[in-house]
Structure formats: C-alpha cells, structure tokens
C-alpha cells in the first residue's frame, strides 16, 4: 500500500501551474484571441478597428457567430454535431417573415412560432440520432439539405421570390422585437461620449447609439452555458454523454434526453441568430446562414472542443467566435483582400485541432 501511495504522490507533485493551465480547454482560444488583438493593434492600430464603432462592429460579428458557436460547443461536448444550424437560420428567418409580412400575423407570434419549429427540428434531429445510433454528422447533413430545400421551396411557393422584406416597420411596432434587434445602454453611451471616451457625431449624438442586443445575448448565452456545463447536474451529464455514452448510461445518466435537448438548443440558438439578423435587417433571405454551421464548429474547435466529444468549453467557443469576428473585420479595416480570410480560417482550424489533440493526449496520459 505504501508503494502505491508514494506513486500517487509523485505523480500529483509533478502538476505545475503550466500543466494546470494546459488542462483548461479554453486556453488555446484565449491565447489566440490575445495574439490576434496584438497583431491588429500593431498592423491596424489607427485604421478605426479599435475606435468605438469599430469595436462594436467586430463584436457584433463575433456575437452573432458566438451565439451559435456556444450551442455548437455544448452539442460537441455532448458528443454530436449539428450541420443543420445554417439551414435552420435561413428557415427561422422565413418562418418569422412570411406570416408577419404576407399573412399579417403579429411579429411576436411569428418569433414564438420560429422557436417552436426550431424545437421540433432539434427534437427530430436528436431522436433520429439517438434511436438509430447513426453518426449525427450524416443525419444532420441530410437535415441541412432538407431544411434549406424546404425553406427555398416554401418561400418561392408563397411569395414567388426567395427574399421577404418589409419587416423593418413591423419590428419597430412590436413589443418582442427590441429584445433581439434593439440596443441597450444609450444613456451610458451619451455619458461616455460626453466624457470623451467614445467619439461624438456632428449632431452631438454618441458615435455608437448603444450596445446591440446580439452582444448582450452572446454574453448571456456564454455565461449560462458555462454555468450549466460546470456547475449543474446537466453539465456533468453533457460531459458524460459525450465522453462515453455507454458508461454514462450504465450509471443512470439520461443520455438520450441530454442529446435530444442539446439538438433542440442548437436549433434554438440558430433561431436566435435569425431573429437578431432578420429583425435588424428588416428582411429575410432563404440563403441566410449558409455555411454558418461550419463556422460555428470551427469556433467551437478553436475553443478547445474535441471532435470526439466529452471535452471542451463554452467560454472557449466564445473566444473562438471573437477571434473570427476580429480577424474578419480586421482584414477589412487593414484593406487586405477579404479572400484571405478563408485561408486564415482553415489554417486556424488546423492549428487548433493539432493543439487540441496534443492536449487530449496530455490530459489522459496514463502512467
């Protein structure tokens, strides 16, 4: 017994602060975000990227992606993918726009309908994956095409076109719309502008009218997801379901319910994304959200999620989204051709996967 005890002590004693940090899944994306900020501060420091409107700009881009990236990360930790996120964005936009514009439904009821249908889509995705045992990659890939096709087909059948506009005025009159498309903190901005912290327009209004709701949603979702993952029973179930569904099931974790719930969550996050975009832009387009599922997955992977499940972090995914948004807008501000953004994405993803793989080996290294 004595020998075993010593052996345990030896091993634990090796754990340095660096190793502890390495064991945090979000380390890579936080470090990456810092690197990106330093880089653009050096290259594009005075191009307006870090002025108040510039910051809001890249935060808004990050926030929209962050909303679906956090959901995608939770699902990935739960051991599954959802490739139908992008199509769900397009579908949700149309579900909000057509009844509101064509049939005169109150906008709030259309938003509720969209979330209801999202729950249904997520449930169907989940139940097929759980019952069939097929890889969610394939099941939701089918979902990607079915949902996109339905969206385009239905929209053209009802309106004769693939775009629905005319939501702007409806959104302004609706009571529910401002929680998706409005801004908060106008008085704060006025105060900051008077202090000279942020700029002022010629008419005396602050350079930015407020913080867009998308950013607020992003922060709320990140905080809630992190809390759920790390501090609730369900969080432990999500890690367990992704880590080893059989082991989890054997100790009484409701694996099927957890996975179905996560699919419903990603579909709802996609709908939230659609609400933010459609109510802000005032129009829905059937091609909205194209390729967003991949961007969400890349952000989650950069954030430390393993493709095999059971490991990752919501904060990491948020930082992944922040890297995305910053680079996308940064490239725009520096005047580099935006084509290069995709190259960056791919390289970033590859580095993240290699890094995660290394970390996973370190974390689970048996004696």
């Amino acid at each position, binding site marked *: *017994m004595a020998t075993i*005890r010593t052996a345990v*002590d030896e091993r634990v004693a090796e754990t340095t602060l660096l190793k502890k940090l390495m064991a945090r899944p979000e380390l890579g994306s936080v470090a990456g975000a810092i690197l990106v900020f330093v880089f653009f501060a050096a290259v594009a420091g005075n191009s307006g990227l870090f002025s108040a409107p510039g910051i809001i700009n890249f935060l808004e881009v990050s926030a929209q992606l962050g909303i679906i990236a956090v959901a995608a990360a939770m699902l990935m930790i739960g051991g599954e993918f959802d490739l139908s996120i992008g199509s769900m964005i397009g579908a949700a936009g149309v579900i909000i726009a057509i009844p509101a514009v064509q049939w005169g439904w109150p906008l709030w009821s259309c938003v509720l309908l969209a979330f209801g249908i999202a729950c249904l889509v997520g449930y169907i995705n989940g139940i097929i994956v759980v019952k069939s045992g097929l890889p969610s990659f394939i099941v939701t890939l089918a979902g990607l095409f079915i949902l996109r096709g339905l969206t385009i087909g239905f929209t053209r059948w009802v309106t004769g076109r693939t775009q629905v506009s005319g939501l702007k005025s409806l959104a302004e009159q609706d009571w529910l719309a401002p929680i998706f498309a409005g801004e908060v903190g106008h008085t704060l901005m006025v105060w900051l502008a008077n202090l000279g912290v942020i700029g002022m327009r010629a008419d005396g209004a602050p350079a930015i009218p407020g913080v867009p709701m998308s950013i607020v949603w992003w922060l709320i979702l990140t905080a809630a997801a992190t809390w759920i993952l790390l501090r*609730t*029973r369900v969080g432990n179930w999500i*890690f*367990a379901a992704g880590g080893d569904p059989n082991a989890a*099931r054997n100790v009484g974790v409701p694996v099927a319910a957890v996975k179905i719930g996560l699919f419903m969550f990603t579909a709802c996050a996609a709908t939230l994304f659609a609400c933010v975009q459609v109510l802000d832009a005032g129009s829905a387009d059937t091609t909205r959200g194209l390729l967003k599922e991949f961007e969400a997955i890349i952000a989650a992977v950069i954030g430390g999620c393993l493709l095999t499940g059971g490991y990752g972090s919501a904060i990491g995914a948020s930082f992944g989204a922040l890297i995305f948004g910053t680079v996308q807008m940064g490239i725009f501000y520096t005047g580099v051709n935006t084509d290069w953004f995709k190259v960056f994405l791919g390289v970033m993803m590859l580095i993240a996967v290699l890094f995660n793989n290394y970390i996973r080996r370190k974390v*689970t290294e048996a*004696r």
Partner: protein
Amino acid sequence: MANGNGGPPLVELREIVKRFGSVIALNGVTMKVHAGEVMCLLGDNGAGKSTLIKTLSGVHQPTEGEILIDGQSVVMRSPRDALDRGIATVYQDLAMIPLMSITRNFFMGREPGGTRALGRFNVGGANRIAKEEMAKIGIDVRDPTQAVGTLSGGERQCVAIARAVYFGARVLILDEPTSALGVKQASVVLRYVAQARARGLGVIFITHNVHHAYPVGDAFTILNRGRTYGTFQKNEVTREEVLNMMAGGKELDELSAEIEEFARADAATGAVGAAERAIAEGLHHEAEALHKH
C-alpha cells in the same frame, strides 16, 4: 466469515432464463448473495456472464425466472432502477470516462443538486467528498480535479467501487475487475473487495480467473453454457475443483492433466502460488483488522 444466513439473501436469482430471439444466453441461473459475502461467479468466455450482469443491473429483463431483493420479487427496468435498489455494477472497461475528472466521474449520474436537472453541482464539496472517499480505500488523491485518464487501471476500478459504496450500494457487481490488471494492481482491487465485504456489502465477483477469485471469495457459483452448476462454499471445494467445473464437460484425462500441470507449476516455480498466498494472507489480515473495529 459472516455469511449472514439469518435473513433472506440480499439478492437471489431463481431459474433466470434470457433469450435473444433464438439464442439462449441464460438457461436457468440460480444463485444467492448474502450481506457480507463475496460470491464469485466463475465462467469461461461465452458462459453467459455478461448477459447475467446486464440482467442483474437492469439493462436486460429476464425472459423467465425471477429476481428477489431482500426476499421480494422485483422487476428492474433500467440501470437507474437497479441503482435505486442498491445494486451497483462496476464494469470492467466502461466504468470511467478518462477525459473527466475524478470528482466528475465519482458523481456521474448521482450529482449533488437534488433531483432537478439544473440543480447546482457544488464542485468544492464534491471534490472534498471524492478525496475523502478515495482516502478511505487507501488511495491518496491530492487533486480530485485531475482527469481519470491519468489514473492506473487498478485505481480506476477503485474509484468506481468507492463511488458505488458511497452511493449506498448494498450489492456490488464487479465485472472482471482484475482481469486487465497486473498482480500489484489486482491486489489493490481485491483488498478493497474484502473491505466492502467487511462493511456488510454483498459482492458478486465475476471473473474467469480462479486465482483472483479464490483468495477473496466465500462461495463460488460456476456458470457454464448459460447454466449454473451449483454454488459451493469455500470449505467445500479446492481451487482445482473450481477450475474443473469451469472448464465443464471436458474429458477426465484432460482435466487431470491440467491439474497436474497446475500442481507442477506451483511446486516448481512457486511464483503464481506465492503471489496468491501473499494476497490471501494480506486479505486475511485486513479482514481481521476490520472486524476488530
């Protein structure tokens, strides 16, 4: 060794039959486990051990026969159901999730936070409990947040057993807990099995390794081709006889040849035998020490 013959057995199986379509996995299994008893269920590959475990732990429902807990006939519909009745199963390789921390594994499926799914998982308290429970079985975990993947196989088994005991298991089903382990690792697990018995738990120890089963077992049930051969108390059988029955239906000369080989190996090298004796002796002392408390 206390066999708790006073009351009804903790768990009793009566003529359990399990069929999967036309395949008969279990064809009349009868066995009992009392409190404070280690029942070794021995069988070769394909004897129906896995099916029996899954039936006992609520994964499968028997086609025929009945399961009695405390003398009451019960139907267990899910692993959760079995857990709630105090039957905890520790699977050989499915016990732990390597990427999750010791604490998270320890509380998996039984997280603190009440019955609500969003109930608060008090991580600090959970870490403390996991550390304490591991210390009770002689494994000093300094950092319960470290991933289980960093533990050795024997330690992982111990975490799984400690978890089951902590959550009020009255019957422990151990599925080949030592088969993937080295001698030293196996002895850690076996020692803990003896501790669990001393605490009054019933243990069903499933193995095909007589050398691990014999030192720690009080009774032996032999499973062969989906049937039980019967249950034998330790003083009724020798290790060699148990081995013979496991092999089941072999020609007599084959058996005796095997026995001779065993005896020869024991006498010649003494290696296996010595290790076993050492384990058995250690367990004996351990059990005595625990009884004194």
